[in-house]
């Protein structure tokens, strides 16, 4: 039975592709929440679109997705988080941006609105902002506890966010995150933008995942406009996505070791990352491959010497990487820092639908490339590594194994690269159409939901980074760890701030 059929719903929305969307009444909404709370399906997204709130659900085993839409009654809807905590921050963001209220929500504090915009509910009915009340961090009581506030400006070259630690001596009792500092109002800039302008914004939502965001956005637009992408573009996109994945994994493996003061690994993986980015620049003209995936295909075909540079890269990486794996595996002082540090419990990974290495290191094997089987991954051979330990070490090993899989994928892609055009023309439909696109970024699945008007311009676009369901698990993972291990835990998650704050 299709996922949507398990939920009482009104008529399906026409022209929502490739998965169905339907309006639901209170009974359908509550049934969807119950199915999330019972673990029958996974929360994929929850976003505002006044007067509606949309809830995207995933049936992992069947690879099926459904979106249900609830029309708010006087700006209110029954809270999802009341029964299913992973929805809490999404509901707080909806309240900040749209002014839609989740009835019975466990946490009514603001989330993205830090009180500086000069306006409230910018995507709903904007009102001039009053002076905000001071943000109330969760109270922590107990003998000998002290607080350590960190950020938003951090000590390294990283994104800004605030961490409020409560510690008992060396041991962390609680971490509470406060994010939103890099909120740029991307969703408001999207509304009314041309497809080209929106694609540029998408590519700059989380710079480390620019390919994955553009990939998901293009797939959403192509679903809405019913465009078939030429086979060559399908393969080139996957090549870009895998290059992006290994570049980020190299960076992360080195950075995690560096946070345990093992700078040798950082220096070595830095070389591999740089070589990967240079090969990307040779192939597609941009080191991070920004704006290279566009609705309809790819912006430019791979350079004439591109395939040769990818083959040379594969040769170098295959020669150098095994030695670094051995180095990681044989350095006891490093393992002493990573093994049993920052454990994410398997049931949290499942409940939150944590993607990427955070989920896979804690027993949740979901990978959109395999489980939603989008082209060309349906025709390629690869494995999705899964471990159960859930610690920093497991998250390092997942990255190592994924690099190996990606190297194999890159080889398969260049071996089979089809000829022909690399871009199809995009034509507006003349009617409103909607699309949902998902792509597997290096840190997990990115969701893009798009509504286009008859001229092909964007009416509404929502993007959901994998970090939404990983950040809360970092709070759980650091409990009982020493303060000095926080950087290791944090780097092993490497959540996005910009992709989350939007």
């Amino acid at each position, binding site marked *: 039975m299709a996922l949507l059929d398990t939920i009482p719903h009104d008529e399906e929305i026409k022209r929502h592709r490739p998965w169905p969307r339907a309006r639901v009444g209170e009974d359908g909404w509550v049934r969807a929440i119950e199915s999330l709370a019972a673990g029958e399906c996974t929360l994929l997204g929850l976003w505002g679109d006044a007067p509606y709130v949309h809830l995207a659900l995933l049936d992992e085993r069947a690879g099926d997705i459904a979106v249900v839409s609830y029309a708010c009654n006087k700006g209110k809807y029954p809270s999802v988080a009341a029964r299913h905590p992973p929805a809490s921050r999404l509901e707080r963001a909806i309240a900040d941006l749209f002014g839609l209220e989740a009835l019975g929500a466990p946490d009514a504090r603001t989330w993205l609105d830090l009180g500086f*915009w000069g306006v409230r509910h910018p995507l709903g009915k904007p009102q001039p902002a009053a002076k905000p009340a001071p943000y109330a961090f969760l109270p922590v009581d107990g003998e000998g506890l002290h607080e350590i506030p960190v950020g938003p400006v951090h000590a390294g070259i990283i994104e800004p966010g605030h961490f409020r630690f409560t510690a008992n001596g060396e041991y962390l009792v609680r971490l509470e995150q406060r994010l939103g*500092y890099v909120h*740029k109002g991307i969703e408001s800039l999207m509304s009314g933008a041309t497809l080209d302008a929106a694609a540029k914004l998408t590519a700059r939502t989380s710079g480390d995942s620019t390919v994955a965001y553009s990939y998901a956005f293009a797939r959403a637009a192509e679903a809405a406009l019913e465009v078939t992408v030429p086979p060559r573009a399908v393969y080139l996109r996957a090549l870009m996505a895998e290059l992006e994945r290994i570049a980020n994994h190299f960076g992360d493996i080195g950075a995690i070791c560096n946070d345990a003061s093992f700078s040798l690994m950082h220096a070595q993986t830095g070389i591999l990352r740089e070589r990967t980015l240079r090969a990307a620049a040779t192939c597609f003209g941009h080191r991070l491959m920004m704006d290279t995936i566009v609705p309809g295909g790819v912006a430019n075909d791979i350079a004439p010497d591109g395939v040769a540079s990818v083959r040379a890269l594969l040769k170098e990486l295959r020669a150098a990487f095994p030695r670094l794996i051995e180095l990681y595996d044989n350095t006891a002082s490093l393992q002493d820092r990573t093994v049993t540090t920052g454990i994410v419990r398997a049931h949290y990974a499942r409940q939150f639908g944590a993607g990427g290495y955070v989920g896979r290191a804690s027993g949740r094997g979901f990978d959109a490339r395999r489980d939603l089987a989008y082209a060309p991954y349906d025709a390629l051979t690869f494995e999705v590594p899964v471990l159960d330990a859930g610690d920093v070490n497991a998250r390092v090993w997942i990255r190592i194994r994924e690099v190996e899989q990606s190297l194999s994928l890159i080889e398969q892609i260049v071996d089979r690269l089809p000829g022909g055009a690399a871009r199809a023309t995009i034509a507006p439909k003349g009617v409103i159409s909607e699309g949902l696109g998902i792509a597997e970024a290096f840190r997990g699945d990115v969701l893009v939901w798009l509504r286009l008007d008859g001229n092909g311009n964007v009416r509404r676009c929502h993007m959901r980074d994998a970090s939404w369901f990983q950040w809360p698990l970092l709070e759980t993972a650091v409990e009982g760890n020493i303060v000095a291990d926080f950087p290791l835990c944090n780097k092993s998650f490497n959540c996005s701030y910009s992709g989350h704050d939007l």
Partner: protein
Amino acid sequence: MRRTLLQSLTQRPLTEPAPAPDEAALAELAKSLKRTARAKLGRSLSIRQVDAGSCNGCELEIHALNNAFYDLERFGLHFVASPRHADVLMVTGPLTKNMREALLRTYNATPDPKWVVAVGACAADGGIFAGSYAVVGGVNDVVPVDLHIPGCPPSPTQLLKGLLALLEHGSKRA
């Protein structure tokens, strides 16, 4: 580990020759530094990076400056953890309203004399995020900028050219 270390000794270094300082950057610096007389900062500069709203693309390329190919520290340039230790603030991003206060405080915490380098298209004027309810605009709207390094994101070579211009200008004024 021994093998990796030994190989590093026998291999030729990966570090590449320095690019020439960027001409446009030198011209901008000559103009901007006339604004106030400042003491010479010398040939060694400590840089504090501040992400004031970036997509994280600029940070990735700033990170790359420390890899074996660009080896920023050979020029006496290095990143520090606190604005209190910094000569240069390197700011990225369209300045978000949520980061304005934090940037100002970081600027005020940096001892004089100090320089501000705005990195990337967004830091110049807000870039494609300009006009949003959540964005102030360019970095210069809140703190005085001495040098802009363009690009989306600037490549490590572009970053290096800009920073070398900063060094060259500093030593010329001796």
